[in-house]
């Protein structure tokens, strides 16, 4: 039974790993057992799931945004590239 005992620090690390689908079966098992006796980590885990949803929306949003360089910036780069070409 002792080998299944983990600290809150370890439990929350596994919980974070699990957010990316990368926690192993044994780790998930330890985590579930830890949750039985630790409401704080269970609360962390629930809130972590919500944070993951927010991160995912933010990530998609960031990847979809279309930003252009200003014509001033382009001109600066153009000058620098032309100089290098000579």
């Amino acid at each position: 039974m002792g080998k299944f005992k983990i600290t809150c620090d370890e439990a929350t690390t596994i919980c974070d790993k699990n957010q990316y689908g990368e926690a192993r079966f044994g780790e998930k098992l330890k985590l579930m057992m830890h949750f039985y006796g630790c409401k704080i980590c269970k609360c962390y885990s629930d809130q972590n799931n919500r944070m993951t949803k927010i991160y995912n929306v933010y990530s998609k949003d960031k990847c979809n945004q279309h930003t252009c360089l200003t014509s001033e910036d382009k001109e600066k780069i153009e000058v620098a590239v032309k100089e290098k070409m000579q």
Partner: protein
Amino acid sequence: MSTETKHTLAPDKWVQLYSDYLFNYTITRVSGGEIAKDLVQETFFSGLKSMKNFKGLASERTWLVSILKRKIIDHYRKINSKKGKAEVRMNFYKDGENEGEWIEERAPNTWAEDTDRGIKNEELKATLEYCIDKLPEKYGMVFNMKTIQGFETEEICKELDITSSNLWVIIHRARTQLRRCMEDNWFNN
């Protein structure tokens, strides 16, 4: 007989044709516009230097993107080689009888509301960005690579020369700090 078109390079048109595309590609992968601009410019410089190596098999844009990818990785490597500047606030006891347990005042609080209020809200986005910016540089970098840009664990470990255990500890520290920051500035604000 091969009918494949051989691509050619026209560096005098690069800025006009590809600077916006490359800038967009970069801005989603690094933390600031200025860094992105520098990386785009460096990509063009490197392209000029290695023009003789261009075999014409890929399009000009694809070739420039492959150079840019290296530049982005080099940028992260450079950050990684700098020592962490910020003190990391831990949420757990480090030693003694309570080692690895929550420090009472750092334990998660119940959040004021249960709905996913305004998940697309601009204000929420701004708060999240504020919290990400507050992370120590290395934590922010690994968190961004893994969570926002979706790099594979193996790829990050290889590029930053860290073990996967290191990566998960960093991710854990980053997420714990982010959760705390969001709790103070969004959920219970």
